């Protein structure tokens, strides 16, 4: 008897991605560059977040031909994004055979109140969060992997740091609580009690947690690993830089050797220009992506 689509298989694939870099790509050529650089997975997109930000309008699931072409050329897992709450986009991506779905705030939300009920799917989901409550709400809905949101497409790591520190601080706070205070804590962070109890007991999230949103340099990636990320997503940071292949390789090495400053120094040389960065405070509040989802 073979069982497919189980929780263990969904969370297990995320465990295999740990210590690695997941790179945004918009065509087969970029996907090959990412794989050759040592990416553990690619995110197939029509536009990287910085271009989505620049283009404005409604951002939707990518053209399926783009995703299929990328799936054909790489052996590493291929992820793709659906809009928050758009369970039909998710079903389409599942039917196409993508390996992970990112229900992502980078696309324009399709539903203002409800996320996809991810337990119903065989394909695993990753979702963004800014704090422990949001992370556990997503896990409660069936997300088998979490990433902190950061602020995608900015090349500015400050929001990624804020979100990772908040999640880790929430966990440390919860782990130190006496048992009788756990229900009130669950109420405060608006998360399912059973998952809050689990985090209290284990001192960690129930699923793998990566960092995302604004990582642009090898040192950024290593910083996120130090703060508790189990791997990193790099979006615009690679293919919006002047030398994507060299930068991709350097970020992969810095993620593995994040504790070794000599190696990070070595790989950070001669990478050319990083992507242009955006000051978060200069972005109009309605254009910030991290506030999407709840």
């Amino acid at each position, binding site marked *: *008897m073979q069982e497919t689509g189980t929780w263990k*298989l969904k969370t297990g*694939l995320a465990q*295999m991605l740990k*210590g690695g870099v997941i790179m945004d790509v918009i065509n087969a050529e970029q996907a090959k560059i990412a*794989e050759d650089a040592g990416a553990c997975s690619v995110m197939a997109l029509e536009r990287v977040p910085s271009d989505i930000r620049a283009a404005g309008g409604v951002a939707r699931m990518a053209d399926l031909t783009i995703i299929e072409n990328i799936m054909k050329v790489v*052996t590493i897992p291929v992820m793709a994004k659906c809009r928050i709450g758009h369970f039909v986009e998710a079903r389409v991506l*599942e039917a196409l*055979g993508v390996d992970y779905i990112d229900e992502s705030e980078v696309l324009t939300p399709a539903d203002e109140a409800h996320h996809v009920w991810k337990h119903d799917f065989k394909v695993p989901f990753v979702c963004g969060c800014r704090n422990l409550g949001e992370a556990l709400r997503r896990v409660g809905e069936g997300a088998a992997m979490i990433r902190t949101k950061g602020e995608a497409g900015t090349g500015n790591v400050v929001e990624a740091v804020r979100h990772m520190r908040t999640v880790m601080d929430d966990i440390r706070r919860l782990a130190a609580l006496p048992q009788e205070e756990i229900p009130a804590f669950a109420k405060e962070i608006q998360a399912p009690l059973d998952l809050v109890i689990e985090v209290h007991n284990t001192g960690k999230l129930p699923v793998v947690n990566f960092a995302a949103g604004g990582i642009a340099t090898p040192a950024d990636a290593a910083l996120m690993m130090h703060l508790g990320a189990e791997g990193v997503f790099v979006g615009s940071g690679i293919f919006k830089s002047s030398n994507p292949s060299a930068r991709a390789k350097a970020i992969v090495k810095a993620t593995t050797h994040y504790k070794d400053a000599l190696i990070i120094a070595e790989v950070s040389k001669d990478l050319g220009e990083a992507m242009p960065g955006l000051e978060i405070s200069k972005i109009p509040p309605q254009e910030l992506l991290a506030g999407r989802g709840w």
Partner: protein
Amino acid sequence: MKIGILALQGAFIEHLHTLRSLGVEAVEVRTTTELTGLDGLIIPGGESTAILKLARHYHMIKPLQEMAKAGIPIMGTCAGMVLLANKVTESDLQTLCLMDIEVRRNASGRQVDSFETDLAIPDIGGEPFHAVFIRAPYIKHLGAGVETLARLDDGTVVAVRKGNLLALAFHPELGHDTRLHEYFLKMVRASKKEIAR
């Protein structure tokens, strides 16, 4: 007894926890220096292309090959099995080429086809082993002297051993059943005696 776990990318912490739960000293290995003084090595699941790129860049290929030749036991799980194989079907991936097997990557299909199943593994005795296959490689061809330890119901070979090398297509580190890790530790103890002699 000190076991290293190749920690370049993938599920190395899970192996570390399993070994420590068995009371064994286990360490993460990211550099050639950290390869010295080990009695055994585990190459974990992860992405074989990513692990190989990093191993090659940091000059670990030759030391790993020398370790295997010196008779030090190595267990490869999933991506680790791909690294051990001599040949990868329809691919020019340069592996460690330590074991006379040919493997096909992602042989069961995409992630939605990943599966859990019970395997009969006579060498570890007792109950069937509940095995987790995630985008798993299958063994398509075995050379002389490579011993089959487990097959799927359809006959596909998913666990093999040759001398000091053990290759598994699935993930014993994701469950609570420690029998395969204990089997590997037996190989390590036997090799320590052999090397001492």
